[in-house]
């Protein structure tokens, strides 16, 4: 009997999952990010930023006179989980627009579902295929709110070639991560087009922790620059291990190398100093003062990574779209997202304009930073992508 009861419970549970009523008084905005798993630091920062923005907007009276109800779900870093989270937000919680995911693979999985469900999602997954699955085609309901990986790789290559006068590049890319490979490809392509030489282009398997085999190879080609489109941990280890093997070249890296973690993974600022990386947010800009103040007041600790800004900006872009749509309707909000123009944000140069043809931002610039010996980020220059 007990076991039959257990069986019954199993079947009932599935029903219970779907059981959450929603009184649709406030405007429900969904948010999907990694609250568990290896990128949960970024995910929780993104969520904190989003919650902060929603609170600010609500304190000012909300949108269209209604409050925003932000519901955040975890995707565990797994595409199927992301899709379930999206469906749950749309079906159960009746979200009219969804923000988030910094994972290209998860956004790639959600994109076709969003086409069916017709509820827009705007996030930070920088793989261009998220919004443009094939040339000439755009996913109607999926949007990107930062420069794409192709643009980021291109900007780094131009900075290295034009501003630092580097000519012989080595590239190290994580073959299991499209964030890494797509930036690496864009970098190599641009660098060669400018007239530089890519002396070594190594793609390694995901999960590698010991890069000495590759660094030894790279060293034998004597490049003058290494491009490391990596997450902070891998990038830091690569830098640390190349110093250990006596390879001292200029390091160019992706936006993840702006994390404080990067310095730790490098084994200290003495190794990290001199690294150039990209970052479309300059926290030293006075305009961030109120943001920092509000964040610290709410969470009792300083901002950890720039992902906080991503969550924060996402919600303001969504709020703007809902306001301009004039009604709480996913289709109208989608149209409004597509036509975002000159909306103030914290990232980039402070203004956000969406390209309706690609659903990616128009000419969103990034800062190039250099890690200084005292552990501060020194902004070198603001660089715009070439469209």
């Amino acid at each position, binding site marked *: 009997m007990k076991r039959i009861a257990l069986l019954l419970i199993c079947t009932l549970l599935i029903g219970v999952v779907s059981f959450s009523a929603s009184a649709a008084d406030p405007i429900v905005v969904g948010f999907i990010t*990694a609250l*568990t*798993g*290896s*990128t*949960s*630091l*970024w*995910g*929780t920062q993104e969520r904190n930023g989003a919650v902060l923005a929603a609170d600010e907007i609500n304190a000012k009276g909300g949108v269209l006179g209604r409050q925003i109800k932000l519901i955040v779900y975890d995707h565990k870093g797994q595409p199927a989980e992301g899709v379930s989270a999206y469906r749950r937000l749309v079906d159960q919680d009746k979200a009219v627009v969804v923000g988030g995911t910094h994972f290209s693979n998860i956004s790639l999985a959600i994109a076709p579902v969003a086409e069916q469900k017709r509820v827009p999602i705007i996030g930070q997954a920088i793989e261009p295929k998220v919004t443009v699955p094939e040339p000439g085609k755009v996913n109607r309901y999926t949007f990107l709110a930062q420069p794409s990986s192709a643009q980021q790789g291109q900007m780094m290559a131009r900075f290295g070639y034009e501003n630092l006068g580097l000519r012989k590049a080595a590239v190290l890319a994580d*073959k299991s991560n499209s964030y890494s490979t797509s930036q690496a490809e864009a970098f190599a392509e641009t660098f060669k087009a400018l007239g530089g030489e890519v002396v070594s282009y*190594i*793609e*390694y*398997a995901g*999960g*590698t*922790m*010991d890069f*000495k*085999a*590759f660094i*030894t*190879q790279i060293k*034998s080609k004597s490049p003058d620059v290494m491009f490391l489109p990596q997450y*902070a*941990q891998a990038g*830091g*280890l690569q830098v640390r*291990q190349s*110093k*250990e*093997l*006596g390879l001292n070249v200029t390091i160019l890296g992706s936006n993840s190398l702006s994390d404080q*973690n990067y310095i*730790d*993974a*490098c*084994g*200290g600022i003495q190794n990290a100093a001199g690294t150039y990386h990209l970052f479309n947010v300059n926290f030293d800009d006075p305009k961030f003062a109120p943001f920092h103040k509000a964040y610290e007041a709410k969470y009792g600790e300083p901002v*950890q990574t720039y992902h906080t800004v991503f969550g924060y900006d996402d919600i303001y872009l969504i709020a703007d779209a809902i306001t301009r749509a004039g009604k709480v309707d996913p289709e109208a909000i989608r149209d409004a997202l597509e036509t975002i123009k000159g909306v103030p944000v914290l990232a980039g140069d402070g203004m956000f304009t969406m390209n309706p043809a690609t659903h990616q931002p128009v000419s969103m610039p990034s800062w190039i930073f250099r890690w200084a010996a005292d552990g501060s980020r020194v902004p070198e220059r603001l660089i715009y992508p070439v469209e």
Partner: protein
Amino acid sequence: MLFQQIVNGISVGSMYALLAVGFSLVYNILGIANFSHGAMIALGAFFSYWIARYLAVPVPVAILASIAFTGLSSALVELVTLRILRKRGQGSLYFFIASLTVFNLVTAVLVYISRGNIVSYPRAFLSGTFTIGNLYIPWIDAGMLLISIVCLAVLSYVMFKTRFGLAVRAASFSIKAAQLMGMDIDAIIQGVFFVSGTLAGVTGALLGVKYAVYPYIGNFVYMALFACVVGGLGNLTGAVLGGLLIGLLETLVSAYISSAISPALTFAFLVVILLLRPQGLAGRATEEKI
């Protein structure tokens, strides 16, 4: 360049060897993979980091303290999982799943506490490099090799010269026969978990120094399993050889064959080795245990 690559390979291999030895201790006595070893690796890394950072003690002291902690944690895991299962008449098979779950649980807790953050030790320990001719040898790698050797020497003293070691080796052959000799098998298993936990703690802390401290550092346990099997089960020398072989193979495959699919190729090589030499590298073709 080849010599440099061999040095690189040995440095990775010595670490795998240390991992594999700790792992094989429990394997030998229970005949089952203990994945909670991975949890102990991660705890060792985090605990020594926390001590070094928040109590501001030198890194070696922090590592020693964390070793005691991981040893005790490992014994605790034995107490709340394996002991209960054994009392209920269930043996090592169910412990395998329990240990896997403990591993996942500890990783999840560390993700929660550290928020998935990557951290490094506050002050440089064994940083820098020395050179011999064209060879670059990082101090940390040399240090790890040395510490591995010391650990293995201590372990072989314990295993071959002490009463406890005798009991462990006897129990590795047959738990029943060991009990008939008046050996307290619960205490012995607990002791083995403790020793295995301390080894995991050392390795975890050193991995933390060498790479970084992060919640998924325990995933190195899969390498330990591989090294242990390739070397020949039930054989501590084999575990060391297996670890060194995997480290070298991985590095050389990455350097000279293919970097992107090096794990797959490395494992394929290992499977071929096992097909050619089913008893493992150092395994003798002794009779099957009962």
